[in-house]
């Protein structure tokens, strides 16, 4: 039994070190992508299009819904306790600092995390990755680096859009249901919005982008021989990304509020 536990522990450490090495290689190749100007550049554009642009609709709809809900509930419920102005703080905390980065990360996990892991898995099974090696193209620089950069950039940009739709767009939605004066809304909103809030959201999106892309790439590259491994890679990419993003969110939140 002890032998089995020991073997499992060694295996886990091996996998962790391998993942770290993989991460380091992806970062290195990403840094060299622009210098090399190799064929991977169009992959980067396609990845941004898929992860960022095509996910904009879902992210915008979520931001509008959440922003409008906070507006509606905050303006009536908090007013009963004479704390109407707290609505703006809640808007900022939820949209910009906490929920925005996390929800956009979840959207990207569901769309791009699975797509990247299963696509790479399929390529591995079809020996397409080996074919890249055979013609002298490093799969990490051509396949992984553009996807890594594409997901990170997209997530940061998506979060900016989430903020715009959550803070500004929701105002427009609320005007239909329960009008608030334009100048009152924005004066109060910008009174509580600090650069730290925006920076926090930016930092989280950046970290989540790294986690989602590296996990999906790692799982995709991990497929070896069978097509049945492909959906498993997708499922594992989603599960691991969710857990790691939530964990990272808690850590960053703790650093922000306790540090």
């Amino acid at each position: 039994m002890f032998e089995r536990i020991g073997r499992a522990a060694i295996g886990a450490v091996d996998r962790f070190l391998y993942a770290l090495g993989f991460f380091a290689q992806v970062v290195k190749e990403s840094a060299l992508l622009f210098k090399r100007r190799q064929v991977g550049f169009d992959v980067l554009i396609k990845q941004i299009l898929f992860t960022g642009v095509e996910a904009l609709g879902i992210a915008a709809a979520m931001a509008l819904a959440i922003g409008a809900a906070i507006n509606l509930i905050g303006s009536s419920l908090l007013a009963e306790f004479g704390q109407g102005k707290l609505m703006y703080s809640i808007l900022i905390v939820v949209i910009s600092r906490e929920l925005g980065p996390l929800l956009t990360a979840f959207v990207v996990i569901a769309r791009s995390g699975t797509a990247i892991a299963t696509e790479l898995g399929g390529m591995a099974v079809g020996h397409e990755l080996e074919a890249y090696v055979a013609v002298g193209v490093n799969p990490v620089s051509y396949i992984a680096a553009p996807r890594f950069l594409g997901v990170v950039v997209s997530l940061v940009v998506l979060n900016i859009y989430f903020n715009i739709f959550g803070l500004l767009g929701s105002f427009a939605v609320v005007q239909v249901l329960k009008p608030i004066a334009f100048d009152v809304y924005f004066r109060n909103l910008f009174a509580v919005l600090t650069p730290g809030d925006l920076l926090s959201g930016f930092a989280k999106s950046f970290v989540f982008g790294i986690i989602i892309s590296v996990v999906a790439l790692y799982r995709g590259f991990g497929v070896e021989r069978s097509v049945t491994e492909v959906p498993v890679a997708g499922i594992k990419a989603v599960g691991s990304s969710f857990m790691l993003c939530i964990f990272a969110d808690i850590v960053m939140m703790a650093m922000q509020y306790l540090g």
Partner: protein
Amino acid sequence: MEGTSLVELRGVSVVRQGYTVLRDVNISLSSGETLFVMGVAGSGKSMFIKVAAGITIPEEGDILYKGKSLDRLAPREEAAFRKSSGFVFQDAALWSNMSLFENLALPVRVHEPRRGRAEVDRAVRRAAELVGYGQDLGVRPAELSSGERKLIGLARALVLDPEILFMDDPTADLDETSAARVPAILDELKSRGRSMIIASAVSELAQRCADSIAVLVEGVIAARGPYGDAMTWSDARVREVTGRLKARDAPEPGWLKGLAGAWVSAMADGVEMPDSRGEPRDDLAGGGLAGGEGGKD
């Protein structure tokens, strides 16, 4: 570099999921040599050829290219090795998200980025013509039959006119007509001094093209020698593989005859055959495959 092997495997062992696929393999390939690696299914031929081409990294041992370990090649040297080597996968392994043209163009664009669009186009079309693929290159691999995919995989390996070719079962999945082109292509490559390592269980192909034979039995090189010696090997496990090999003066096998065989024979005799447009074919003449007017050598 006189006397140095082009490719050499030293003490190579590969273990996959607890199973030893290759065990202490020591073998070398001279410049201009065509080495056939034969063995029954599961003997480790595919793994051997991937290891020899530096695609799969062995657990033990070293792969040397012109006397230098692949592990220790500088990035520029590694790029030169990749440019001068072509690999034909057993299942073609075309990039499914690219058109056939892009599949063939990528190696050219990677290794010769200064080439203009017209030159890349010319290299791609020459390679496709060489393997006898005259259809639309704008389609994706999924729209092809497995045989056509295999031909494009062969064309991709040839597009840069490599010095050395690694082929994993080059006639697998090919119909009789397409399979009949392969020996002609190999003959042409041999005549131009190209080196080849070919993993194949097809005795007829070995009989026609092999300079030397290596027999893999359960991941171990059980026999290795010139083609002429293969008929004299007496080990039962080796004979199981080489038993169908015949002396070079034996009659040609049936699948090399017929219409396709006539084309191949004509090529071997140096006779120009008309292509489908009724024009003489020049793709097998020694003009080089990579789009240069006179080849690179």
